[in-house]
Each structure stands twice: as C-alpha cells, then as structure tokens.
C-alpha cells in the first residue's frame, strides 16, 4: 500500500468508516444510525479493496452493504413508533458505553500494534483459492455455518408469521 492515491484513499475510507461507526452510536435517530451503518460497512469494503482482497471487498458489498444494511433499514423503518423523521433516539448510559468501548478498544489496539505493518498483500485473484478452500478443506465448517444460518432463517420466518397471524393486535403507530 504505497503511493499517494492509495494512501489518500485509505485515509478517506478510514475516515468514512470511523465517521459511520460514530454515526451509528451517536446519531439522534434510528434511521440515520442505520444509514451510518451502511457508510461504515461501505468504508470497510473499500479498505478490503485497497488491501487487494477483491473477493472479500465484493462480498462485503454484496452481503453487508446490499443485504444486511438494507435489511436493517427495512427493520428500522418498519419498527413501530419510528414515526416521523424528527423522532429522537438518545444514546443512553454513556458511562457504561464508554466502559464497553474501552474493554474492546484496548485489546484491539494491542493486537493492531503487534501486527507487522506495510506488508504487500498478494495481487493474485483470490476467488479460486477461496472457492477451493471453502469446498475442500473447510467444507464441514462451511456447511455447519450454513445450517446455523438456515435455522436462524426458519426461526425468523416463524416469528414473523406468528406476528402476522393476528393483525388486529399489532401495536402499529406508523404514520402518527
């Protein structure tokens, strides 16, 4: 990662990621938090791309940016009581939050400083090796994770159906 443009790009993307993350935590409104999450994830995808991890970057885009963040947005917008644009979402318990932050940040920083910096990552395409690994060596973990996800999916559908079954009881306040 040398050269002016990549360095600039890195700073830009890092700033975007951090600002996005800060937005998620500090934004006054749920929907804006969700959009900030999108920005943070997008920044992450950019950093993957800078690191020449093309498949990771694209998958990050596909799954997290295109899928998860849209899903989160969906969920947030459909939440009852989300109401109009002006609704507040104050950040509660700043002290507790700070403690958790420190608890995570210190090990993370320690880990980061122990990492060797400035190593060139391989420029080879990573698609084929990753594909081989997923369908070869790691096929069992891969499948186990798939089953887990499937179970989660079925559970989610079940929950959602139960909720839809009786629409009269739905405590809807949207549009208020």
């Amino acid at each position, binding site marked *: 990662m040398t050269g002016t443009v990549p360095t600039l790009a890195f700073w830009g993307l890092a700033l975007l990621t951090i600002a996005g993350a800060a937005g998620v935590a500090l934004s006054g409104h749920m929907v804006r938090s969700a959009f900030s999450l999108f920005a943070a994830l997008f920044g992450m995808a950019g950093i993957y791309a800078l690191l020449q991890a093309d498949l990771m970057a694209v998958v990050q885009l596909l799954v997290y940016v295109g899928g998860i963040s849209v899903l989160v947005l969906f969920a947030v917008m459909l939440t009852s009581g989300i109401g109009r644009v002006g609704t507040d979402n104050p950040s509660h318990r700043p002290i507790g939050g700070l403690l958790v932050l420190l608890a995570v940040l210190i090990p993370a920083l320690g880990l980061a400083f122990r990492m060797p910096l400035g190593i060139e990552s391989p420029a080879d395409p990573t698609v084929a090796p990753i594909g081989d690994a997923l369908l070869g060596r790691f096929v069992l973990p891969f499948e186990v994770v798939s089953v887990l996800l499937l179970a989660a999916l079925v559970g989610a559908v079940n929950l959602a159906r139960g909720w839809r079954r009786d*629409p009269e009881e739905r405590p*809807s*306040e*949207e*549009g*208020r």
Partner: protein
Amino acid sequence: MTGADLAARITAAIPDAVVAVEESPTDPVVQVRPEVLHAVAAFARQDLGMETLRLITAIDRPPETIDVVWHCLSMPQHRTLTLKTRLPRENPVVATVSDLWDAANWFEREQFDLVGVHFVGHPNLKRLLMPEDWVGHPLRKDYQRPEEYHGIPTARDRVVPVREVAPPMHGPKAAEQDGWMLLNMGPHHPATHGVLNFLLQTDGEIVRKATPDVGYLHRGIEKIAEMNTYAGTMPYTDRVDYLGGMATNQAWAMACERLLGVEVPRRGEFLRVIAVELNRIASHLIGTGSLAMDLGAFTPFVHWLREREYINDLMERICGARLTYTYMRIGGVARDIDRETLDRTLQWLDHFEPMLGEFDRLIGSNEIFVNRLANIAVMPAEAAMSFSLVGPNLRGSGVRWDLRRDEPYSVYPELEFDVPVGRGFRGTVGDAYDRFMVRMLEMQESARILRQAIARIPDGEFRAKVPRVLKPPAREAYGRVEAPRGEAGFYVVSNGTERPERVRIRTGCFTAMPAIESLSPGLMVADIIALIGSLDVIAPEVDR
C-alpha cells in the same frame, strides 16, 4: 302494474299509509304518510321486489312543505314505484332507508346537505358536497348565497389578489384512526381522474378502507337549472358528464319533452341515436384506455385517444363542438347531419373495428393486465343492485339491464343489438376485468347500432316545432337514458313557469362512489386504482 294496484298492495300491508296516488305511464307515484315511510319502503323492498333505489329527491316547496321522493325500481319485474311524502318545512324529518338500500346512504346525505332534510337513523348524516362548516342548504328556495367563505369571495366578479385568500380551507378530513396509516389519494392524483379525493387507511400496501371525499367539483347544476329556462339548461347538461355529453343532453331533452308532451320527429331520433352511440364509443375509449394507463400501460391510452380524435372530428361536423356538444334541443336536435359525415362515420367504423381487436391483443388479453383485474373488487349482482350501480358497472356484475332495451326509448326498439354482461371472462362474475370487458363489447355493439342507424336514417324533419318560450304545465317528469356511465336521468318538477321548480340529476358515478368504499377493504393500493378505473368514475358526474 298501475299506481292504484301498487297503492292497494301497500294499503293491504300497511293500512292508512297511502295518502294519494298519481298515475303515470312510466313512474306511478304513491304518496304516503311520512310516519310510515320506512315501513312502506321495507314493504316495497321485500315484498314488491324493489331491490334498487334509483334516486331520492327532496323538493323545497315554500312556504309550507318539503316533498321527498323515492324512485324505486325492480329490474327483474320491469316495474317502478315512486314513493312521495310531504314534510313540514320547519322540521323536515323522515326515517332513513339506508338500512334497506346501500345507495340510500349517499342520496340521503346529499339531500340533507343541499335541502336540509333530516333522515333519522342515518349512520353518518354529514354534509357530502358542501364543506362541513357551510351554512345553509343551497337548494332551499330562500337560500342566500354568502358573500365569502373563509375569505374567498363566492362571486366571480370580485377578483381578489392571491395573498388575501386565507389558507385554512380544510381541516384534516379524517382522524388517523386505529393506528392505520392515512393516505390522501387526491384531490390531485394521477389515478383519480379529476378532482376526487380518497382517504385511504392503509396497513402497508393493504387498504383497510378507502373513503371517498367528494365535492371538489360541485358547481350546483341543479341550482343553476332552477334559475334557468328549460332550453337554457341544455348547455349545462354537457358539463354533468363531460365525456358523455350527448347522453345527458338527451336525458334532459327527454325529460322536458315528457313535461311538454312534444313528439320528436323520426329523423331527429335517428340523429340522436347516431350522436349518442358515437359518444358512447368515445367515452368507453377513455374509460378503457385510462384504465390501462392507470395500470401502467400508457400506449393503449394514446391509441384510444387517437380513435377518439376521429370521433371528435365527426362530432365537430355533426354539432360544431368537440366536447361540450349541446346538440340536442327540446323536440329534436340542433342541426341536421350531412351525407358526407355519415360516410365518414362508416369509413371510420371500418378502421375502428380492427382496432378493437388490436387493443385486445395489445392490452386486453395481456397476462399482466388480466391478472391485475381478474378477481379484483368483485361486485356481486345483489350488491350491485342495492348500490344502484348502473350501466357497464351493473352489467359487469352480470345483470342484464340496459335502458335502451328494458325501458325502450327513441328508436332503439327498431335496432338490433346485444346487451353484453359480465360472465367471469377471466375470473369471477363482477370483477374489474368483467367491467372492462363489458365496455369493450359495448363499443362493438355501438358500432353495430351505428351501422344500422346510418343505413336506416329516414328523411324529414329533424326537429319538432316548439314554442320559443317553454312553459310546461305543473307536473313532473323523469327522463332517463342509457348513458356511457349508465343511467343518466333528469327528474324535473315544473311549476307552470318558464323555470323548473326542481331539477334532480341522477348519474351513474354518484352511486359508484359508495361502492368503492364498500369494495375497498382488503385491496392493495394499486388495486384501488384498478377499482376506480374499472368503475370509470369521473368527478363532475359525482359532484355535478
């Protein structure tokens, strides 16, 4: 069955109900006491089989009374019954019949609004056409028009700068009830075809209820007619149904001819038939085309506008105008037709009939279109009659009722045509696709009628001699024709002067509006658009 027979049957069931009987070849009138009105109406509905309520009219007759008239109809028996009652003017109170006929709900609201008759037991007796905070009842004879309403002058001559107009014209039309999202569809919305408003209570895309909010185009044509001569009202009838002006023209002319006892010459009748059938095609072109446009297909609409342009050109040759025809006159039509116009009509029909097939290929049998309409907003025949739906909307529900055939007028009995009805072309009888298809088939029938009428048109006078000043004797008449949007009727009460005492306009769209309200629950937002389009509702007919 004559009026006396009907009165006898009513008396047998409810003694002392009948006050008087007026015989009439079309609509025998039975006058009843106001206290027993509901009982008589229930008897008529259940035992006499009057499953349709055509019209409720209140007539202000100062200084003493307000007359209220109910026009009932039994379609299977081809029988009508007109109930009349006389209420004191200071306290006009009568029982509601909205529990017997669905159509009565809006009729009663309208008469409450405009004449100030209270219908006891009505579920929602609020103003319909006028704003809710309006003062007075405009169709009362002693009504004084206010100078201004919320700072807006009511007279055209006083032009005010825009800034003077106070903004709060309407409060919220309905509370956001039950936590459902409230959507205002209209007054300016691409799919409401004019200035209509629908208050949608939605649960996401699913509509819980669509409440029509009408009156944005209320111009008070009934009131204008009271201030105008019989002949001078003719131009206003164009404006009742701007897409089917010929038919409303004819209805008004027929009502006045019945009052005056004027006979229309045969050539005049043929000219009327030609004009009305051309107009019916033009109107159905807009109806079906805009339905396609509402569902997202723009091309069919433009194609139909092109065909309508030909009709407009023919109309221009026939009567001189393209939209507001004012072609009919009391006793005939305004001007004769020339051979050239007839030839051109035939030429156009040659072009148009293949176009119907093309339209069907382009959109009518398109699978997406079919699936958008089939089994949507199903109106069963019973409900259609109770809601007093008329015309293609009624026939779409499978009821074979066409005034041209069932209450024959003009020269229609001499002409051969079918009455297409909905029969579940792609789904259930009475769904939106049936209503669409009935309109398509009616265009074909109209083309058939046109060819016959052009072939048989006789020579002779096209207009009867009528006096310059029309003073019909004091009586009443109900002229009704099969307009493109169903029955267009003018119920006229004359008082022996140049000006009518009361004019009541019955239009197809007015009764279709409450039907939308009742069909809406459970539909999706996009289906509401299909529903409005398939009923072919246009705003001026609702508000008049």
